[in-house]
């Protein structure tokens, strides 16, 4: 009798653990006997942001990107990390590029052919201007099917000197998202 109780308790413990494991996951291919936990994925478009050439001190580089969720469930974008696969003085924290990030509730529009974008709806500043490299916290909830229209704004300070001529940097913008913890 005691033995059954012990087994039952163990079984209950194990079932609870599996239940927790699988609760937030999609079950894919279950009919084939395979169990795969797959959460929603964060996607960015485009993955290769249009290059900026012949940048001069005082120039503004504006690019728009779109974040969206693939799969079921919502995601909270919690961080943006900017790294340089090709570093140069352009990423110098004191005199190099500075980055800010804004969101528009609708698609960013460019009234001219130049890369200058306007938000005709609600604009939210996500990151204040600061040195381009580094990791920053974000809080941006994305529901399934929802898109976040973002504008990356880089500026090379007007005080940048001749040392920043003829420099090239390749930046990587990495957004990290997590499923919101509802418990």
């Amino acid at each position, binding site marked *: 009798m*005691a033995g059954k109780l012990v087994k039952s308790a163990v079984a209950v413990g194990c079932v609870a653990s599996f239940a927790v494991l699988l609760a937030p996951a999609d079950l894919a291919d279950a009919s084939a006997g395979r169990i795969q936990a797959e959460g929603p994925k964060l996607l*960015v478009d485009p*993955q290769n942001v249009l290059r900026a*050439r*012949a940048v*001069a001190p005082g*120039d503004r580089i504006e690019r728009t990107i779109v974040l969206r969720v693939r799969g079921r469930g919502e995601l909270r974008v919690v961080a943006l990390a900017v790294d340089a696969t090709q570093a140069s003085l352009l990423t110098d924290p004191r005199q190099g590029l500075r980055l800010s990030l804004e969101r528009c509730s609708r698609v960013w529009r460019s009234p001219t052919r*130049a890369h200058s974008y306007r938000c005709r709806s609600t604009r939210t500043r996500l990151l204040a201007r600061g040195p381009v490299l580094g990791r920053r916290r974000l809080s941006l909830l994305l529901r399934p099917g929802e898109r976040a229209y973002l504008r990356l704004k880089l500026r090379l300070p007007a005080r940048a000197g001749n040392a920043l001529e003829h420099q090239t940097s390749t*930046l990587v913008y990495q957004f990290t998202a997590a499923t919101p913890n509802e*418990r």
Partner: protein
Amino acid sequence: MGEVSGLAIDDNESMRLSLHKVVVSIAILGVAAAIAGLGTFATFTSTTSATHTIASGTLTLTAPFSRLGTGASPIAAGDTMQRAIDLSYSGSISFSAVTLTTSASPSSLLDTDTTDGLHIVIDKCSVAWTESGPPYTYTCGGSTSSVLASSAIIGSNVALSNLTLTAGSLDHLRATITFPSTAGNTLQNQSSTLTYAFTGTQRAGQSQ
């Protein structure tokens, strides 16, 4: 026996208590495992990234052709000297302005006398000046425009007009230096070595 029986009863109770403890412990372990599962697996993460290459340009002002280094001696009041220079905006960034600063070392009345000393005029030709000489003189086969009106030869950051200033382009300039006919005898036997410094400033910041 009663004692034995009593002992037996006590043993059974003790065993039940122990089993109860074991069950409770296992249950607690199960709940703990579940809670641990909550903490570990309740959040899925996903990352995505985009790459972006940014290249700064160059601001380069050169003089691929210049006769400004060619001296003139001896000169008399009323003489003019023409010298050509090409300014090349050879970098990838355009200019907003170019200024001229002239200095003299050694110096003499030729450059310090702002009335009767040397004066300079700069013109631009839409095509290369046609040179003849020496002594050098130039004619323009295209259209001319004024870059600098008559000024004393020494000046600091003097603005130049009508320059192209576009990256990759070239301006064909002609400097005409005049020794005024009003110059008196005090300007005889004077000698100055002039340095011409053209300084360019980049265009204003813009959206890229």
